């Protein structure tokens, strides 16, 4: 390693870098106004994210897990400013991020916040070669301007994700799924952001490359105090990278806990089911127990606790009253059963 990495001076661990307060995002999926008037249909709102609060300390990682469609990506997009929140707010480094995105200063902020997208292929412009794709943030923020310099830097970035600098002049479609994902990781790392939102960054990578990438991310975190929001379906990975884990269900956080606690002693019934469904390396040919029941329709979410139709411990209260996220036994859980000590 040629360059000596100095830890950032202003890194005061313990102070939250990102604070999401009651973040919510609804999508208006209702038909146009005139249609509604004529056909007497109500507005249809989809609560993709419905009041999510968390904070991430500088240099730490919060992982989000949960079913497909529970709103993880929406949270991610809210954090990077792709969506404006319908409710709630986001503080980044003490300032209101969404207000800042709108100002010219927002560009500077953009540089500090980056995102790795869920679908690597879709997030790469099919008509650009890799050099331009990875170089874009560098150019946009005026970090590097010389063509040669830029090339060199892109080469380094490619190498760091296990690709060759010689791949620079290829187009995205000439890569395999995992290679594309690595390209989008390299792009996100290009501006050396402080906060990185990773939406399933390693889903298409084989374990060895995944290990490399995760190690890089860890190294960066250690050396530069990078902060991550990490979304993944792979609980083993989550367990490895996260400091804290948030479990989402239908637009809400149902449990937030330190990873040790969460994996050792899951509280919410959904978390428990999820952990049960992890495939095990040790026992080849074992049958797993998937979470029972169908995924609820987000347009018409169940009343009360959204999980109650699938929950073995549900009672009348669960179907009537929506549980709040409460601190119980050192973790935050939103479950009446846990609150009442039925579990």
């Amino acid at each position, binding site marked *: 390693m040629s360059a000596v990495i100095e830890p950032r001076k202003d890194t005061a661990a313990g102070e939250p870098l990102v604070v999401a307060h009651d973040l919510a995002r609804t999508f208006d*999926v209702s*038909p*146009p106004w*005139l*249609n*509604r*008037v*004529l*056909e007497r*249909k109500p507005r*249809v709102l*989809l609560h993709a994210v419905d009041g999510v609060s968390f904070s991430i300390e500088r240099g730490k990682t919060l992982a989000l897990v949960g079913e497909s*469609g529970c709103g993880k990506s929406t949270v991610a997009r809210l954090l990077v400013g792709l969506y404006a929140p319908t409710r709630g707010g986001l503080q980044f480094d003490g300032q209101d991020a969404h207000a800042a995105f709108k100002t010219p200063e927002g560009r500077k902020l953009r540089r500090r916040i980056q995102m790795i997208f869920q679908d690597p292929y879709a997030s790469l412009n099919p008509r650009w070669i890799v050099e331009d794709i990875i170089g874009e943030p560098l150019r946009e923020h005026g970090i590097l301007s010389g063509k040669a310099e830029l090339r060199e830097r892109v080469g380094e970035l490619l190498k760091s994700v296990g690709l060759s600098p010689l791949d620079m002049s290829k187009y995205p479609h000439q890569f395999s799924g995992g290679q594309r994902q690595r390209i989008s990781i390299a792009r996100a790392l290009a501006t050396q952001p402080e906060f990185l939102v990773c939406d399933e960054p390693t889903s298409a990578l084989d374990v060895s490359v995944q290990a490399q990438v995760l190690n890089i991310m860890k190294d960066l975190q250690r050396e530069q105090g990078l902060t991550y929001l990490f979304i993944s379906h792979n609980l083993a990975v989550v367990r490895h990278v996260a400091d804290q884990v948030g479990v989402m269900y239908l637009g809400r956080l149902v449990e937030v806990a330190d990873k040790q606690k969460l994996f050792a002693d899951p509280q919410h019934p959904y978390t428990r089911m999820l952990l049960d469904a992890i495939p095990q390396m040790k026992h080849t040919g074992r049958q797993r127990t998937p979470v029972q029941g169908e995924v609820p329709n*987000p*347009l018409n979410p169940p009343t009360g606790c959204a999980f109650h139709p699938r929950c073995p411990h549900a009672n009348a209260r669960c179907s009537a009253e929506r549980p709040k996220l409460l601190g119980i036994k050192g973790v935050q859980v939103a479950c009446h059963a846990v609150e009442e000590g039925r579990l």
Partner: protein
Amino acid sequence: MIAFVLRRLIQAVIVMIAVAFIAFLLFQYVGDPVVFLLGQDAKPEQIRELRAGLGLDKPFFVQFWHFLVNAAQGEFGLSLRQGAKVSRLIGERFPATLELALVAAVLALFIGIPMGVYTALRRGTFMSQVFMTVSLLGVSLPTFLIGILLILVFAVTLGWFPSFGRGETVKFGWWTSGLFSVDGWQHIVLPAVTLAIFQLTLIMRLVRAEMLEVLRTDYIKFARARGLSNRAIHFGHALKNTLVPVMTITGLQLGGLIAFAIITESVFQWPGMGLLFIQAVTFADIPVMAAYLCLIALIFVVINLVVDLLYFVVDPRLRVGKAGGH
């Protein structure tokens, strides 16, 4: 759906008013109708009198207001030259133009689309190069030249098709149709081909370009993997996915066919609106032009509306109000 249509119709009215307004602005420059209304021996006071009688001496906005008021009552006034109700004149001519445009459009679509598909599938082969090149003749020769050449070859030399007119027509109420007699079909062939040639080239090239994109998509690959026949893949799956841009352009072109078949109609003496319009322009027949332009605006609005509705038919993702999974 109804609401969608309703909204578009409201917009259509606005568009038509705008068109009428611009049309009236135009009329200051297309000539003076009075010059053509009276014979060469007319006395100046007769001319003045006629001008006043027609209201042509009034300020622009007054004339426009009168037009709007009349138009709102469904009355577009009288043709200055023909002295007949404009609505009747256009009504007489509309079926001819519409039939011609439709036949041409069908021709263009039914030849253009398969050719587009073929050239996309056999990209780079000799035959597709030939198609691509030859089709260019259709756009690089002016319509009047193509029309005359067709007449020269098929009417004069070979004597296969008649060179002018609409042939026998059958009357259904106010609608006259030439499509119910052999004679009528013979007459429509040459003008329809002339009109279609340009569209054909455009459609073929557009389909090819879109097909090339679509053929690379995952669902085409997957359709292949499912062992579907080539026909099902190319025409069922790939083609349908190219339709959105193709429909947009075809819609615009069909509107163009109806609206601006002027040259073809005059070459083949096709008794349609284009012929009426070109005469109206030469004689500065303001009411005819105004009504015609409004009608064209309406046609475009309707066609664009139909195209937008067809989007819904073709692409279920655009259908509102039926949202399922998410």
